[in-house]
Protein backbone atom coordinates (compact mmCIF):
# COMPACT_ATOMS: atom_id res chain seq x y z
CA UNK A 1 0.00 0.00 0.00
CA UNK A 2 1.14 3.52 -0.71
CA UNK A 3 0.40 6.99 0.58
CA UNK A 4 0.46 9.56 -2.20
CA UNK A 5 0.80 13.17 -1.06
CA UNK A 6 0.45 15.81 -3.75
CA UNK A 7 0.93 19.55 -3.41
CA UNK A 8 -0.95 21.31 -6.21
CA UNK A 9 -2.23 24.68 -7.32
CA UNK A 10 -5.55 25.34 -5.57
CA UNK A 11 -7.51 25.92 -8.79
CA UNK A 12 -6.52 22.46 -10.03
CA UNK A 13 -8.20 20.62 -7.15
CA UNK A 14 -11.43 19.86 -9.01
CA UNK A 15 -9.56 18.48 -12.03
CA UNK A 16 -7.42 16.23 -9.84
CA UNK A 17 -10.38 14.99 -7.81
CA UNK A 18 -12.22 14.12 -11.02
CA UNK A 19 -9.25 12.34 -12.56
CA UNK A 20 -8.71 10.26 -9.42
CA UNK A 21 -12.40 9.38 -9.09
CA UNK A 22 -12.44 8.21 -12.69
CA UNK A 23 -9.67 5.73 -12.02
CA UNK A 24 -11.40 4.33 -8.96
CA UNK A 25 -9.75 6.08 -6.06
CA UNK A 26 -12.28 5.86 -3.22
CA UNK A 27 -11.33 8.80 -1.05
CA UNK A 28 -8.89 11.55 -0.33
CA UNK A 29 -8.00 14.11 2.29
CA UNK A 30 -7.56 17.73 1.26
CA UNK A 31 -5.79 20.43 3.27
CA UNK A 32 -5.17 24.08 2.46
CA UNK A 33 -1.46 24.67 3.02
CA UNK A 34 1.19 27.31 2.43
CA UNK A 35 4.70 26.88 1.20
CA UNK A 36 7.26 27.67 -1.43
CA UNK A 37 9.31 25.86 -4.02
CA UNK A 38 11.11 27.15 -7.08
CA UNK A 39 8.26 29.59 -7.65
CA UNK A 40 9.41 31.30 -4.42
CA UNK A 41 6.93 33.78 -2.91
CA UNK A 42 5.34 36.80 -4.52
CA UNK A 43 4.93 40.49 -3.75
CA UNK A 44 1.78 42.41 -2.95
CA UNK A 45 1.34 46.15 -3.36
CA UNK A 46 -0.76 48.25 -1.01
CA UNK A 47 -0.82 51.99 -1.62
CA UNK A 48 2.36 51.51 -3.60
CA UNK A 49 4.28 49.83 -0.76
CA UNK A 50 5.66 46.41 -1.62
CA UNK A 51 5.20 43.50 0.76
CA UNK A 52 6.95 40.18 0.16
CA UNK A 53 4.75 37.16 0.76
CA UNK A 54 7.09 34.20 1.32
CA UNK A 55 4.56 31.41 1.36
CA UNK A 56 1.99 30.83 -1.32
CA UNK A 57 -1.33 29.08 -0.82
CA UNK A 58 -1.42 25.51 -2.15
CA UNK A 59 -3.63 22.50 -1.69
CA UNK A 60 -2.32 19.25 -0.24
CA UNK A 61 -4.05 16.02 -1.28
CA UNK A 62 -3.46 12.75 0.52
CA UNK A 63 -4.59 9.48 -1.03
CA UNK A 64 -4.10 6.01 0.39
CA UNK A 65 -4.05 3.39 -2.37
CA UNK A 66 -3.22 -0.18 -3.18
CA UNK A 67 0.32 -0.51 -4.60
CA UNK A 68 -1.03 -1.67 -7.97
CA UNK A 69 -2.79 1.64 -8.51
CA UNK A 70 0.33 3.70 -7.93
CA UNK A 71 1.43 4.33 -11.49
CA UNK A 72 -2.06 5.29 -12.62
CA UNK A 73 -2.63 7.61 -9.67
CA UNK A 74 0.68 9.44 -10.08
CA UNK A 75 0.03 9.72 -13.80
CA UNK A 76 -3.51 11.06 -13.27
CA UNK A 77 -2.37 13.73 -10.79
CA UNK A 78 0.55 14.75 -12.98
CA UNK A 79 -1.72 15.24 -15.97
CA UNK A 80 -4.61 16.90 -14.15
CA UNK A 81 -2.55 19.34 -12.08
CA UNK A 82 -0.21 20.37 -14.88
CA UNK A 83 -0.24 23.93 -16.22
CA UNK A 84 3.33 23.88 -17.50
CA UNK A 85 4.19 26.90 -15.38
CA UNK A 86 6.44 27.16 -12.34
CA UNK A 87 4.60 26.39 -9.11
CA UNK A 88 2.59 23.37 -10.29
CA UNK A 89 3.64 21.43 -7.21
CA UNK A 90 5.06 18.00 -6.34
CA UNK A 91 3.98 14.46 -5.65
CA UNK A 92 5.48 12.48 -2.76
CA UNK A 93 5.03 8.71 -2.57
CA UNK A 94 5.66 6.83 0.64
CA UNK A 95 5.09 3.25 1.83
CA UNK A 96 2.02 2.73 3.95
CA UNK A 97 2.28 0.10 6.68
CA UNK A 98 -1.30 -0.31 7.67
CA UNK A 99 -4.78 1.00 6.94
CA UNK A 100 -7.81 0.34 9.17
CA UNK A 101 -11.41 1.18 8.32
CA UNK A 102 -12.82 2.39 11.64
CA UNK A 103 -16.46 1.41 11.04
CA UNK A 104 -15.83 -2.28 10.24
CA UNK A 105 -12.37 -2.88 11.60
CA UNK A 106 -11.21 -4.17 8.18
CA UNK A 107 -7.52 -3.66 7.58
CA UNK A 108 -4.94 -3.87 4.80
CA UNK A 109 -5.77 -3.39 1.08
CA UNK A 110 -9.47 -4.09 1.77
CA UNK A 111 -9.60 -0.92 3.83
CA UNK A 112 -8.16 1.55 1.32
Amino acid at each position, binding site marked *: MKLVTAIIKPFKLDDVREALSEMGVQGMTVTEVKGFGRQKGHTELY*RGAEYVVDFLPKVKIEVAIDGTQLEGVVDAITKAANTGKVGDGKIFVSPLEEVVRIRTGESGPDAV
Partner: protein
Amino acid sequence: MINAGDTAWMIVATALVLLMTLPGLALFYGGLVRSRNVLSVFMQCMSLAALMSVLWLLAGYSIAFGGDGPYWGGLGKALLAGVDATSVSGTIPEVLFFAFQMTFAIITPALIVGAYVERIGYGFVLLFSSLWMLLCYAPVAHWIWGGGWLAELDVKDFAGGIVVHETAGLAALVLALMLGPRREQKPPHNPGYVMLGAGLLWVGWFGFNGGSQLAADGGAAMALTVTHISAAAASLTWAAWERIKLGKASLVGLVTGTIAGLASITPASGYVSPGEALLIGAIAGVLCQWAVRAIKEQLKIDDTLDVFAVHGVGGIFGTIMIGVLGHGSLSAQATALLAVGVFTIVVTWVLAKLCALLTPLRVSTEDEVEGLDYAAHGERAYDLNS
Protein backbone atom coordinates in the same frame (compact mmCIF):
# COMPACT_ATOMS: atom_id res chain seq x y z
CA MET B 1 -35.67 81.70 15.82
CA ILE B 2 -35.41 77.92 15.57
CA ASN B 3 -36.22 76.48 12.14
CA ALA B 4 -37.68 72.96 12.26
CA GLY B 5 -36.31 71.94 8.85
CA ASP B 6 -32.78 73.09 9.67
CA THR B 7 -32.96 71.40 13.06
CA ALA B 8 -34.15 68.11 11.58
CA TRP B 9 -31.35 68.07 9.01
CA MET B 10 -28.70 68.95 11.60
CA ILE B 11 -29.83 66.12 13.87
CA VAL B 12 -29.37 63.73 10.95
CA ALA B 13 -26.03 65.32 9.99
CA THR B 14 -24.76 64.94 13.57
CA ALA B 15 -25.57 61.22 13.50
CA LEU B 16 -23.89 60.88 10.08
CA VAL B 17 -20.64 62.45 11.31
CA LEU B 18 -20.58 60.20 14.37
CA LEU B 19 -21.05 57.26 12.00
CA MET B 20 -17.84 58.31 10.28
CA THR B 21 -15.84 57.45 13.40
CA LEU B 22 -18.09 54.71 14.75
CA PRO B 23 -17.55 52.44 13.01
CA GLY B 24 -16.38 54.01 9.69
CA LEU B 25 -12.89 55.15 10.60
CA ALA B 26 -12.42 52.24 13.03
CA LEU B 27 -13.04 49.75 10.20
CA PHE B 28 -11.04 51.74 7.65
CA TYR B 29 -8.00 51.75 9.93
CA GLY B 30 -8.66 48.35 11.53
CA GLY B 31 -8.54 46.54 8.21
CA LEU B 32 -5.21 48.12 7.31
CA VAL B 33 -3.30 46.82 10.36
CA ARG B 34 -2.12 43.30 11.22
CA SER B 35 -4.66 40.87 12.62
CA ARG B 36 -2.97 41.02 16.04
CA ASN B 37 -3.64 44.78 16.29
CA VAL B 38 -7.14 45.20 14.87
CA LEU B 39 -8.90 45.35 18.25
CA SER B 40 -6.45 47.93 19.56
CA VAL B 41 -7.41 50.21 16.66
CA PHE B 42 -11.14 49.68 17.32
CA MET B 43 -10.43 50.32 21.00
CA GLN B 44 -8.56 53.55 20.31
CA CYS B 45 -11.31 54.91 18.04
CA MET B 46 -14.12 53.98 20.42
CA SER B 47 -12.23 55.26 23.50
CA LEU B 48 -11.47 58.56 21.81
CA ALA B 49 -15.13 58.98 20.83
CA ALA B 50 -16.16 58.60 24.46
CA LEU B 51 -13.33 60.66 25.91
CA MET B 52 -13.59 63.56 23.45
CA SER B 53 -17.35 63.79 24.05
CA VAL B 54 -16.81 64.27 27.77
CA LEU B 55 -14.00 66.78 27.23
CA TRP B 56 -16.04 68.67 24.63
CA LEU B 57 -18.72 69.18 27.27
CA LEU B 58 -16.26 70.04 30.03
CA ALA B 59 -14.24 72.66 28.14
CA GLY B 60 -13.68 71.95 24.43
CA TYR B 61 -16.88 73.57 23.17
CA SER B 62 -16.30 76.64 25.28
CA ILE B 63 -12.71 77.06 24.11
CA ALA B 64 -13.84 76.82 20.48
CA PHE B 65 -17.22 78.56 20.52
CA GLY B 66 -17.66 80.11 23.98
CA GLY B 67 -16.77 83.70 23.12
CA ASP B 68 -15.44 86.17 20.57
CA GLY B 69 -11.81 86.62 21.59
CA PRO B 70 -9.25 86.49 18.79
CA TYR B 71 -7.40 83.43 20.13
CA TRP B 72 -9.79 81.40 22.25
CA GLY B 73 -13.38 81.36 23.35
CA GLY B 74 -12.75 81.25 27.07
CA LEU B 75 -14.37 78.99 29.65
CA GLY B 76 -17.71 80.80 29.89
CA LYS B 77 -19.60 77.87 28.36
CA ALA B 78 -17.69 75.10 30.15
CA LEU B 79 -20.14 72.30 30.98
CA LEU B 80 -22.55 74.16 28.67
CA ALA B 81 -23.11 76.81 31.34
CA GLY B 82 -26.09 78.95 30.48
CA VAL B 83 -27.16 76.76 27.55
CA ASP B 84 -30.46 74.91 27.70
CA ALA B 85 -32.97 73.49 25.22
CA THR B 86 -34.26 76.97 24.34
CA SER B 87 -30.84 78.48 23.55
CA VAL B 88 -30.48 79.30 19.87
CA SER B 89 -27.44 79.21 17.56
CA GLY B 90 -28.38 80.62 14.13
CA THR B 91 -31.59 78.79 13.26
CA ILE B 92 -30.97 75.63 15.33
CA PRO B 93 -30.83 74.87 19.05
CA GLU B 94 -27.39 75.70 20.42
CA VAL B 95 -27.17 72.29 22.06
CA LEU B 96 -27.52 70.75 18.58
CA PHE B 97 -24.68 72.93 17.30
CA PHE B 98 -22.70 71.71 20.32
CA ALA B 99 -23.46 68.07 19.45
CA PHE B 100 -22.68 68.53 15.74
CA GLN B 101 -19.32 70.14 16.55
CA MET B 102 -18.65 67.45 19.13
CA THR B 103 -18.60 64.83 16.38
CA PHE B 104 -15.86 66.86 14.65
CA ALA B 105 -13.87 67.01 17.89
CA ILE B 106 -14.19 63.21 18.03
CA ILE B 107 -13.05 62.40 14.52
CA THR B 108 -10.11 64.81 14.37
CA PRO B 109 -8.00 63.14 17.12
CA ALA B 110 -9.27 59.77 15.87
CA LEU B 111 -7.82 60.49 12.42
CA ILE B 112 -4.37 60.74 14.02
CA VAL B 113 -4.69 57.10 15.19
CA GLY B 114 -3.56 56.01 11.72
CA ALA B 115 -0.07 57.40 12.32
CA TYR B 116 0.78 55.44 15.44
CA VAL B 117 -1.05 52.10 15.20
CA GLU B 118 0.66 48.83 16.15
CA ARG B 119 3.19 50.38 18.58
CA ILE B 120 1.67 53.20 20.65
CA GLY B 121 0.96 53.03 24.39
CA TYR B 122 -2.78 53.07 25.11
CA GLY B 123 -2.38 55.46 28.05
CA PHE B 124 -0.45 57.83 25.80
CA VAL B 125 -3.25 57.79 23.23
CA LEU B 126 -5.79 58.87 25.85
CA LEU B 127 -3.64 61.51 27.54
CA PHE B 128 -2.17 63.01 24.39
CA SER B 129 -5.45 63.09 22.48
CA SER B 130 -7.23 64.79 25.39
CA LEU B 131 -4.69 67.59 25.67
CA TRP B 132 -4.35 67.89 21.90
CA MET B 133 -8.08 68.29 21.35
CA LEU B 134 -8.33 70.97 24.04
CA LEU B 135 -5.13 72.87 23.26
CA CYS B 136 -4.67 72.40 19.51
CA TYR B 137 -7.97 71.48 17.84
CA ALA B 138 -10.33 73.64 19.89
CA PRO B 139 -8.25 76.86 19.58
CA VAL B 140 -7.85 76.38 15.81
CA ALA B 141 -11.61 75.74 15.51
CA HIS B 142 -12.10 79.02 17.36
CA TRP B 143 -9.70 80.93 15.11
CA ILE B 144 -11.52 79.89 11.94
CA TRP B 145 -15.10 78.95 12.90
CA GLY B 146 -15.56 80.61 16.27
CA GLY B 147 -15.00 84.21 15.24
CA GLY B 148 -11.26 84.26 15.98
CA TRP B 149 -8.44 86.07 14.24
CA LEU B 150 -8.42 83.95 11.07
CA ALA B 151 -12.18 84.41 10.66
CA GLU B 152 -11.46 88.16 10.72
CA LEU B 153 -9.10 87.66 7.75
CA ASP B 154 -12.00 86.01 5.88
CA VAL B 155 -10.24 82.66 5.67
CA LYS B 156 -12.47 80.11 3.94
CA ASP B 157 -12.65 76.60 5.42
CA PHE B 158 -16.16 75.30 4.96
CA ALA B 159 -16.01 71.97 6.78
CA GLY B 160 -12.48 71.55 8.05
CA GLY B 161 -9.70 71.33 5.46
CA ILE B 162 -7.58 73.33 7.88
CA VAL B 163 -9.37 72.81 11.19
CA VAL B 164 -9.70 69.03 10.84
CA HIS B 165 -7.47 67.66 8.11
CA GLU B 166 -4.42 69.89 8.23
CA THR B 167 -4.22 69.70 12.04
CA ALA B 168 -4.74 65.93 12.17
CA GLY B 169 -2.37 65.34 9.25
CA LEU B 170 0.49 67.36 10.71
CA ALA B 171 0.00 65.95 14.22
CA ALA B 172 0.15 62.49 12.64
CA LEU B 173 3.41 63.31 10.91
CA VAL B 174 5.00 64.70 14.10
CA LEU B 175 3.93 61.70 16.21
CA ALA B 176 5.10 59.21 13.56
CA LEU B 177 8.48 60.92 13.50
CA MET B 178 8.81 60.90 17.31
CA LEU B 179 7.63 57.30 17.59
CA GLY B 180 9.77 55.78 14.85
CA PRO B 181 8.76 53.03 12.44
CA ARG B 182 7.05 49.73 13.25
CA ARG B 183 9.44 46.84 13.90
CA GLU B 184 7.82 44.74 11.23
CA GLN B 185 5.74 46.06 8.37
CA LYS B 186 3.07 43.67 7.17
CA PRO B 187 0.32 44.10 4.59
CA PRO B 188 -3.28 45.00 5.58
CA HIS B 189 -4.93 42.00 7.26
CA ASN B 190 -8.44 42.67 5.94
CA PRO B 191 -8.96 44.93 2.91
CA GLY B 192 -12.66 44.08 3.18
CA TYR B 193 -12.90 46.03 6.45
CA VAL B 194 -11.08 48.90 4.75
CA MET B 195 -13.76 49.02 2.07
CA LEU B 196 -16.61 48.82 4.60
CA GLY B 197 -15.04 51.66 6.57
CA ALA B 198 -14.47 53.79 3.50
CA GLY B 199 -18.09 53.24 2.43
CA LEU B 200 -19.36 54.44 5.81
CA LEU B 201 -17.00 57.41 5.71
CA TRP B 202 -18.24 58.34 2.23
CA VAL B 203 -21.89 58.32 3.35
CA GLY B 204 -21.10 59.98 6.68
CA TRP B 205 -19.27 62.77 4.89
CA PHE B 206 -22.64 63.96 3.56
CA GLY B 207 -23.32 65.02 7.14
CA PHE B 208 -19.82 66.41 7.64
CA ASN B 209 -19.89 68.74 4.64
CA GLY B 210 -23.63 69.04 4.05
CA GLY B 211 -24.17 69.70 7.75
CA SER B 212 -21.53 72.42 7.81
CA GLN B 213 -24.08 74.62 6.03
CA LEU B 214 -25.95 74.51 9.39
CA ALA B 215 -29.21 74.73 7.43
CA ALA B 216 -31.44 72.56 5.26
CA ASP B 217 -31.15 74.55 2.06
CA GLY B 218 -29.62 74.70 -1.40
CA GLY B 219 -26.18 75.30 0.06
CA ALA B 220 -26.35 72.04 2.01
CA ALA B 221 -27.61 70.18 -1.06
CA MET B 222 -24.78 71.59 -3.17
CA ALA B 223 -22.17 70.78 -0.51
CA LEU B 224 -23.42 67.21 -0.37
CA THR B 225 -23.36 66.90 -4.16
CA VAL B 226 -19.88 68.33 -4.73
CA THR B 227 -18.61 66.12 -1.89
CA HIS B 228 -19.95 63.06 -3.63
CA ILE B 229 -18.56 64.06 -7.04
CA SER B 230 -15.08 64.69 -5.63
CA ALA B 231 -15.07 61.32 -3.82
CA ALA B 232 -16.14 59.56 -7.01
CA ALA B 233 -13.54 61.29 -9.17
CA ALA B 234 -10.69 60.65 -6.74
CA SER B 235 -11.63 56.96 -6.38
CA LEU B 236 -11.38 56.57 -10.14
CA THR B 237 -8.17 58.54 -10.66
CA TRP B 238 -6.41 56.80 -7.75
CA ALA B 239 -7.28 53.38 -9.17
CA ALA B 240 -6.45 54.42 -12.74
CA TRP B 241 -3.08 55.90 -11.74
CA GLU B 242 -2.31 52.74 -9.78
CA ARG B 243 -3.17 50.64 -12.82
CA ILE B 244 -0.84 52.73 -14.98
CA LYS B 245 2.06 52.95 -12.51
CA LEU B 246 1.89 49.56 -10.78
CA GLY B 247 -0.05 47.30 -13.13
CA LYS B 248 -3.20 46.61 -11.11
CA ALA B 249 -6.04 48.71 -9.74
CA SER B 250 -6.49 47.65 -6.10
CA LEU B 251 -9.44 47.85 -3.71
CA VAL B 252 -7.33 49.42 -0.97
CA GLY B 253 -6.11 51.95 -3.51
CA LEU B 254 -9.54 52.85 -4.86
CA VAL B 255 -11.06 53.40 -1.43
CA THR B 256 -8.04 55.39 -0.27
CA GLY B 257 -8.76 57.56 -3.30
CA THR B 258 -12.32 57.95 -2.00
CA ILE B 259 -11.00 59.36 1.28
CA ALA B 260 -8.48 61.59 -0.50
CA GLY B 261 -11.30 63.04 -2.61
CA LEU B 262 -13.46 63.59 0.47
CA ALA B 263 -10.70 65.27 2.48
CA SER B 264 -9.76 67.50 -0.47
CA ILE B 265 -13.28 68.77 -1.13
CA THR B 266 -14.01 69.38 2.57
CA PRO B 267 -12.75 72.97 2.85
CA ALA B 268 -14.16 73.90 -0.56
CA SER B 269 -17.50 72.08 -0.38
CA GLY B 270 -19.49 75.21 0.44
CA TYR B 271 -18.09 77.26 -2.43
CA VAL B 272 -17.34 75.21 -5.55
CA SER B 273 -19.49 73.95 -8.43
CA PRO B 274 -19.87 70.26 -9.29
CA GLY B 275 -17.50 70.77 -12.24
CA GLU B 276 -14.85 72.25 -9.96
CA ALA B 277 -15.39 69.36 -7.53
CA LEU B 278 -14.71 66.95 -10.38
CA LEU B 279 -11.39 68.71 -10.97
CA ILE B 280 -10.44 68.78 -7.27
CA GLY B 281 -11.26 65.09 -6.85
CA ALA B 282 -9.49 64.04 -10.04
CA ILE B 283 -6.28 65.77 -8.97
CA ALA B 284 -6.55 64.52 -5.36
CA GLY B 285 -6.51 60.87 -6.46
CA VAL B 286 -3.10 61.31 -8.06
CA LEU B 287 -1.63 63.97 -5.74
CA CYS B 288 -2.33 62.09 -2.50
CA GLN B 289 -1.07 58.85 -4.01
CA TRP B 290 2.17 60.57 -4.90
CA ALA B 291 2.34 61.95 -1.34
CA VAL B 292 1.93 58.48 0.20
CA ARG B 293 5.03 57.25 -1.59
CA ALA B 294 7.01 60.44 -1.06
CA ILE B 295 6.52 60.31 2.71
CA LYS B 296 7.16 56.58 3.05
CA GLU B 297 9.97 56.26 0.52
CA GLN B 298 11.73 59.64 0.36
CA LEU B 299 11.12 61.06 3.85
CA LYS B 300 11.10 57.56 5.39
CA ILE B 301 8.49 58.50 7.97
CA ASP B 302 6.28 55.61 9.06
CA ASP B 303 3.03 57.56 9.20
CA THR B 304 1.63 54.07 9.11
CA LEU B 305 -1.80 54.51 7.53
CA ASP B 306 -0.84 57.65 5.56
CA VAL B 307 -2.79 60.16 7.61
CA PHE B 308 -0.73 63.12 6.43
CA ALA B 309 -0.52 62.04 2.79
CA VAL B 310 -4.26 61.50 2.49
CA HIS B 311 -5.88 63.88 5.00
CA GLY B 312 -3.18 66.51 5.45
CA VAL B 313 -2.21 66.84 1.79
CA GLY B 314 -5.86 66.55 0.70
CA GLY B 315 -7.08 69.18 3.18
CA ILE B 316 -4.26 71.59 2.33
CA PHE B 317 -4.80 71.07 -1.41
CA GLY B 318 -8.53 71.79 -1.14
CA THR B 319 -7.87 74.86 0.98
CA ILE B 320 -5.52 76.25 -1.67
CA MET B 321 -7.94 75.39 -4.47
CA ILE B 322 -10.54 77.73 -2.89
CA GLY B 323 -8.15 80.58 -3.66
CA VAL B 324 -7.00 79.22 -7.02
CA LEU B 325 -10.59 78.88 -8.24
CA GLY B 326 -11.38 82.41 -7.12
CA HIS B 327 -13.73 81.61 -4.24
CA GLY B 328 -11.50 83.23 -1.62
CA SER B 329 -8.29 85.16 -1.11
CA LEU B 330 -5.27 83.01 -1.86
CA SER B 331 -3.13 84.99 0.59
CA ALA B 332 -5.66 84.58 3.40
CA GLN B 333 -5.80 80.84 2.71
CA ALA B 334 -2.00 80.60 2.72
CA THR B 335 -1.73 82.63 5.92
CA ALA B 336 -4.17 80.31 7.68
CA LEU B 337 -2.40 77.18 6.44
CA LEU B 338 0.96 78.49 7.59
CA ALA B 339 -0.20 79.78 10.98
CA VAL B 340 -2.21 76.67 11.80
CA GLY B 341 0.58 74.46 10.47
CA VAL B 342 3.26 75.98 12.68
CA PHE B 343 0.93 76.09 15.69
CA THR B 344 -0.05 72.42 15.22
CA ILE B 345 3.51 71.19 14.84
CA VAL B 346 4.74 73.06 17.91
CA VAL B 347 1.80 72.16 20.17
CA THR B 348 1.83 68.52 19.06
CA TRP B 349 5.55 68.19 19.73
CA VAL B 350 5.39 69.84 23.14
CA LEU B 351 2.35 67.84 24.24
CA ALA B 352 3.83 64.57 23.04
CA LYS B 353 7.09 65.22 24.93
CA LEU B 354 5.11 66.11 28.04
CA CYS B 355 2.81 63.10 27.84
CA ALA B 356 5.75 60.75 27.24
CA LEU B 357 7.11 61.79 30.65
CA LEU B 358 3.94 60.53 32.29
CA THR B 359 3.10 57.41 30.28
CA PRO B 360 5.19 55.44 27.75
CA LEU B 361 4.95 56.69 24.18
CA ARG B 362 5.80 53.28 22.76
CA VAL B 363 5.11 49.77 24.00
CA SER B 364 7.92 47.28 24.73
CA THR B 365 9.37 45.19 21.91
CA GLU B 366 7.75 42.12 23.43
CA ASP B 367 4.31 43.74 23.43
CA GLU B 368 4.76 45.01 19.89
CA VAL B 369 5.62 41.54 18.62
CA GLU B 370 2.81 39.93 20.60
CA GLY B 371 0.39 42.48 19.17
CA LEU B 372 -1.47 45.22 21.01
CA ASP B 373 -4.78 43.32 21.05
CA TYR B 374 -3.52 40.85 23.62
CA ALA B 375 -0.64 42.84 25.11
CA ALA B 376 -2.65 45.99 25.85
CA HIS B 377 -6.23 44.78 26.06
CA GLY B 378 -6.09 41.04 26.81
CA GLU B 379 -8.26 40.15 23.82
CA ARG B 380 -7.87 38.51 20.45
CA ALA B 381 -9.81 39.23 17.27
CA TYR B 382 -9.60 35.92 15.49
CA ASP B 383 -9.53 32.64 17.36
CA LEU B 384 -9.99 30.34 14.41
CA ASN B 385 -10.35 27.23 16.55
CA SER B 386 -12.97 28.53 18.95
